[in-house]
């Protein structure tokens, strides 16, 4: 019953938002500012007919998701092992932290000029998305390892566990939830970098590219349509990983405040 009420509220709030948006577009009366109706029309137009280059919405989505997943996968493959080593070996942590700490505060967009000069084709997209996704995964992995309960390690030692057994049987499984959180956040950040990444790519396809193309044509209805699609897909990816997290880590008690 409770869930039905929640759904109802969610639905109502979207309706109210659309009404307010619509009223706002009437009041300000700027021809470029689209009403929700024209945005919905734009979504349908791109989905069914295609954009000025005849690419449909599905094609744009497919290409963008593919690029993000590629960059994200490389980020996962590089960040998780590195995080594991940093988390386990204090000496490596001390060596690497002064390099990583300032780098992680450089926003992915600031890497764009470098990517333009040094890279070509799809490697540009992948690089920018990798930069975005890498640090959340790395930092969460390290945090997960640091949070391994000392009592569990002592317990393992009291049975005579070797160092490797402690790593494989205690440290890694206990940090997996944090690694997963890192993956979720990393995928989110990687996805949010898609527009920036596609700004520098040559191909006329991809959700970011779609937005940039139509911004040039002053068609803000399509721009906003593209933004909404990016938002919804990001949200869906987040939900999917959250659902996987919930299944995998049932043993992690969740705190629910009602």
């Amino acid at each position, binding site marked *: 019953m409770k869930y039905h009420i929640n759904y109802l509220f969610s639905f109502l709030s979207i309706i109210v938002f659309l009404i307010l948006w619509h009223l706002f577009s009437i009041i300000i009366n700027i021809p470029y500012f689209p009403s929700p109706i024209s945005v919905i029309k734009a979504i349908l137009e791109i989905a069914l007919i295609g954009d000025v280059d005849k690419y449909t919405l599905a094609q744009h989505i497919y290409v963008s998701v593919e690029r993000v997943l590629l960059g994200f996968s490389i980020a996962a493959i590089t960040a998780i092992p590195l995080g594991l080593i940093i988390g386990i070996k204090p000496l490596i942590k001390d060596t690497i932290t002064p390099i990583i700490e300032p780098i992680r505060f450089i926003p992915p967009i600031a890497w764009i000029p470098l990517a333009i000069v040094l890279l070509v084709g799809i490697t540009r997209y992948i690089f920018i998305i990798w930069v975005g996704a890498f640090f959340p995964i790395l930092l969460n992995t390290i945090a997960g390892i640091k949070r391994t309960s000392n009592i569990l390690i*002592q317990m*393992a030692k*009291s049975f005579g566990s070797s160092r490797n057994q402690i790593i494989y*049987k205690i440290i890694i499984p206990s940090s*997996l939830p944090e690694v997963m959180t890192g993956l979720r956040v990393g995928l989110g950040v990687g996805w949010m970098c898609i527009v920036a990444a596609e700004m520098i790519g040559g191909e006329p396809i991809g959700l970011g590219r779609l937005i940039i193309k139509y911004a040039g044509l002053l068609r803000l209805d399509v721009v906003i349509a593209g933004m909404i699609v990016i938002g919804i897909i990001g949200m869906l990816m987040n939900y999917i990983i959250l659902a996987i997290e919930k299944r995998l880590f049932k043993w992690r008690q969740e705190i629910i405040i009602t």
Partner: protein
Amino acid sequence: MSKEIIVDSLTKIFTQGKSKLEVLKDLTFDVNKGEFICIVGPSGCGKTTLLKIICGLEEPTYGKVLIRNEPPNPIKHRFGMIFQEDSLLPWRNVIGNVKFGLEIKGYNKKESEEISRKYIEMVGLKGFENYYPYQLSGGMKKRVAIARALAIDPDLILMDEPFADLDAQTRSLMQRELLRIWFGVGKTVLFVTHNVEEAVFLANRVIVLTKRPSRVKSIINIELPYPRNRLSQSFISYREKILKLFHEEMGVSEFGT
């Protein structure tokens, strides 16, 4: 007779920066094979530290601990350590947790499965094999930890206030169960508690520690046959005697126990 455990002039000092905390001072006692020893003392007197030194998790600052004339070695000596804190692996179910020690000791899958089931039944958790720790009560978790420690067939069982968070009924049940196991297998048991009645009910000898830095205040032989009757006059007089020693250490304000 060769001693199972020798604790000789054991001193433990924790240093943190410039401050030093002397926890154990010049502690000496020994334990025979198959004995049930209870260690009681005021809270914060280093009982846990003592157990950790005996099973090799901490190093003595001065003095030494010998297990069968050798320094403690968790790989060689089979320790069944039951920690005061919850020490179950939250990502493993009950049987997975009980198997943990067996895996470390190198038992194969089939053996660990069989042995684990046997000990789960012994601690009264049959039917809960596939439950995860978050689905269990505090007392049940403790029993899983006990099953895990016993499953490896330890030479030495070390228990750090294992029954402290159990309700009175479960506690008394577990005490009798522990005695039953001890009678059956004749293990050496070192049992830390702050509950004097529990110590008198269980132990061959009770070691009373002083407050920090702890020394051995007194060692009392409990010459009562098992199973012990908590209401018998002799039981009560042992309890009173130890409580008196205990209260001398705690100061007058603390009663209870």
